[in-house]
């Protein structure tokens, strides 16, 4: 199973610490689920009640923004990096 690096933005870790980690997963949802085992309280900051990525949270695989917030079935490859950050929003 591919080894995937997952890190959460500092703005998220201000609320719930979760260090950068490596997990084993074949798709995006499995990778996020595995990473959030290390910080279960972070889950509802990233996902809403329907298990969709919140609309002002952005997920990148390497340098590419993932547009889909629902299926999260993108296939991952060995060495991919997932970055979870806050999307920009107004003042």
């Amino acid at each position: 199973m591919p080894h995937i690096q997952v890190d959460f933005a500092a703005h998220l870790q201000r609320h719930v610490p979760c260090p950068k980690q490596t997990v084993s997963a074949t798709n995006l949802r499995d990778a996020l689920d595995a990473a959030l085992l290390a910080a279960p309280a972070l889950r509802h900051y990233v996902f809403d009640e329907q298990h969709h990525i919140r609309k002002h949270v952005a997920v990148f695989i390497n340098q590419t923004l993932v547009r889909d917030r629902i299926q999260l079935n993108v296939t991952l490859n060995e060495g991919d990096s997932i970055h979870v950050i806050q999307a920009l929003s107004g003042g």
Partner: protein
Amino acid sequence: MKQKTLFVSTRKGLFAVERESSGWRVASHHFHGEPVTQFLGDPRDGAQGAWYAALRMGHFGVKLRKSTDRGATWNEIASPALPEKPKTGIWADDTTPWSVDMVWAFALAGSQAGELWAGTMPAAMFRSIDGGASWQLCESLWLNEKRLGWFGGGNDHPGLHSIVVDPRDPKHVTIAISCGGVWTTHDDGANWSLIGAGMHAPFMPEPEQFNPNTQDAHSLSLCAVAPDTMWVQHHQGCYRSTDSGENFKRLNAPTPADFGFPIIADPNNPQRAWVVPARADKYRYATDGAMHVARTDDGGNTWQVFRNGLPQTHAYDLVYRHGLAITNDGKTLAMGSTTGGLWISEDAGESWSAVDARLPPVAAVCFA
């Protein structure tokens, strides 16, 4: 417990405001930068009482925080959450998101410490019996098919903004929804009935104008010593009920504008209430840019308008539905506006003093 602190929930944090010898001053600021939509104090909980703050994080959703040491420390507690949306049946096509966007109302429930109500947007009612460690959805309201007739007023989706608890019987709770009318339970939330006959929405198509299920009650307030008396500031006009919200009677207009968001009942006098008139509908600020508060002392037949101490030129403040609050003794009022104005009256609304601060937009004020 004496209510000595005013809590101001704003777009950028929660402010505690206290009376000093020289006047009311900001004493502390919590959750810097985070939108706070509602606050509740539970004096029954512990030696110093419990404080609850509802945050609406721009990126990360609704979060609740609780303090049992008067704000020295805050802990994250559970947030009300909706269940997974069904993929079949009538709810599969529900256009209302099954995700809590905001906690819009809090109230003390039952008679024991830690018994709480929370109302949300989209409109749903939640109960906690453990001080917010967990929340239970009132399913019979959420899964009532009448909910499909509700809609958002100034918001995208319907929201539950007012919760009043009958002091004679805390299992009797009445709520108001924009736009979903007035509902009541007599069994602590197990069953809900649509009440609120008599309200009129002239902006709706003809057959719907008197439908209680789609009325836009902007706020609902109950008189603590005469709990059958309830007041509503409606999208169009003010109303009063003397039968616990079953039926409402349209009141004479406080001002020609006859629009606004908050209404506050005097806790000790069923004839007295306050509103903050605003000019409808596209303007939504005080008429002529001059802030004023109106009070009735005769059950809504006549109103007095008070301006002393409030800005009278180029004031484009709007006071949201939770932007007006009163102490239990009925003497001190606080008012916060969308442009960050904060005023306090210690003579039942007849004169006002501005708190020396330029606050973020105010969502709610509350004494605790």
